[in-house]
């Protein structure tokens, strides 16, 4: 437990900043809603005038901007994107920082197994992801409830908001795997930004192409917010795929780290 406590302590500052910025951006975007809700029909007309491919890329093909939740999914897409970067940052950094900051010679000579160190670090990432999600969820719930004049679909709200949790867990485990795979990581942010944006671009491309195989590549497609409002549930195939991939990444992280040499200083 001491490792978990230490990890949470070290990540505390960055966690607070991430929570505040994610919730802040979301609330800020939502505050625009009342002032534009009367003009939403005009927006819809504007969107409809775009070429179809463009509409798809923006996720506005079957858009009905008549409820607060259909507006909510726009800012939330960016929350997903930013949240993915946050989670991947944590995943990549949590173990590799011991090598980068050269503290590995301290931690890895303690009487704990590597597997235990890695489990505790993964647990620390999970706890931080849960805190982030709880914070964003509560902030979003309060904002949407206050701003919505009429009752809204609570299930859809929960589905949209919870997709952050799934996206974050996916990218955190991917980050862990990447950090186990690469020998030495000098900077974390370029890796996580790069990977997250590549996946997002693949997702956007596929919104236009609608290729089923390509859809399997990007986790953003697994939790496509515009699909959610139609089906009112997560796609079970994608959910299964998510589960398998996360499991695989975590498994490989343990496997690779067990045999890894700690580079000398």
């Amino acid at each position, binding site marked *: 437990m*001491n490792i978990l406590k*230490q990890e949470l302590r070290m990540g505390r500052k960055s966690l607070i900043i991430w929570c505040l910025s994610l919730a802040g951006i979301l609330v800020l975007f939502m505050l625009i809603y009342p002032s534009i809700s009367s003009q939403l029909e005009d927006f819809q007309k504007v969107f409809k005038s775009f070429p179809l491919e463009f509409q798809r890329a923006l996720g506005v093909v079957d858009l009905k901007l008549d409820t607060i939740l259909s507006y909510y999914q726009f800012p939330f897409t960016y929350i997903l994107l930013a949240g993915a970067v946050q989670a991947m940052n944590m995943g990549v950094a949590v173990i590799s920082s011991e090598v980068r*900051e050269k503290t590995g*010679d*301290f931690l890895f*000579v303690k*009487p704990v197994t590597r597997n235990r160190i890695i489990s505790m670090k993964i647990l620390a990432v999970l706890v931080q992801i849960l805190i982030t999600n709880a914070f964003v969820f509560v902030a979003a719930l309060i904002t949407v409830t206050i701003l919505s004049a009429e009752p809204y679909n609570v299930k859809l709200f929960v589905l949209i908001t919870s997709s952050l949790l799934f996206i974050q867990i996916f990218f955190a485990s991917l980050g862990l795997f990447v950090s186990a795979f690469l020998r030495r990581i000098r900077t974390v942010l370029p890796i996580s930004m790069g990977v997250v944006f590549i996946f997002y671009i693949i997702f956007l491309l596929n919104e236009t192409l609608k290729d089923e195989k390509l859809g399997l590549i990007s986790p953003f497609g697994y939790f496509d917010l515009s699909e959610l409002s139609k089906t009112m549930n997560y796609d079970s195939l994608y959910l299964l795929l998510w589960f398998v991939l996360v499991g695989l990444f975590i498994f490989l992280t343990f496997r690779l780290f067990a045999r890894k*040499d700690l580079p000398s*200083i």
Partner: protein
Amino acid sequence: MNVIEINQLTKYYGKHRGIENVNFSVEEGEIFGFIGPNGSGKSTTIRALLSLIHPTSGTATIFGKDCIKYGSELRRNIGYLPSEVFYYDHMKVIEVLKYSASFYDDVDYTRIQTLADVMDLDLNKRIDDLSYGNKKKVGIVQGLLHEPKLIILDEPTGGLDPLIQQKFFDLIRTENKKGATVLFSSHILSEVQKLCGRVAIIKDGTIVKIENIRNMQKHNYKKFTLEYRGVIDVHHFNLDGITNLTLNENTLHFLFKGDINRIVERLQGQALLNMLVEEPNLEEIFMHYYQKED
């Protein structure tokens, strides 16, 4: 009983050699020196003992148990001081030490203060405000605070001033007297000479020699300094057992291993101004080991 036993330990980093067929053992209660220049494989050997790296072949046991397989269990009784110490920058010294102590059972927390007092270390400073030498002190306290049965020191004295070095050596000696076995790696031979009983010399990843320090100094080598009146005929000393022969104007230096009478024979009829026969220091012996193959 052997605390450390290393058998044919080999480590390659890809094609790059780390160590090759390293063999030596450290007996319980001794202070064992491990010398070699930078890059000779001292740290690689030590890192394999601590299971920070995995050997390519060969085995190493500590307290009779395989050091990779039983790594976490064995490390309970090992105190390690790396050559360069790094800790979590934003933490205070005391926090790092408490974190370190939290990994061990039954740690006497008053020892933190005691050791810090001996080493003259301020516990309330932040790690990133510490100088190199002070960080090293944190490393020393951290490595000794759980009263390990085996202390592994990897070039421990860098950055410490002579006074603190002395205190540190005293501390190691005290722990040794209490029963701790010490593996002391260094490239500074005088400190090994001061502290260690036996020593292993490593060069280019292989052990060149393991010897008792006293044998090495007393029984094998003499250091000669001859001052001549006039010209010196160097060929006169073209003799088996003579090494490190250097000529300085009219002064001749060399190390000699063997029957001393043979030197005396050669000196008869020579016009000497002065002559010194001394115990060589380890450094000189050491250079000899290194030059042998060059």
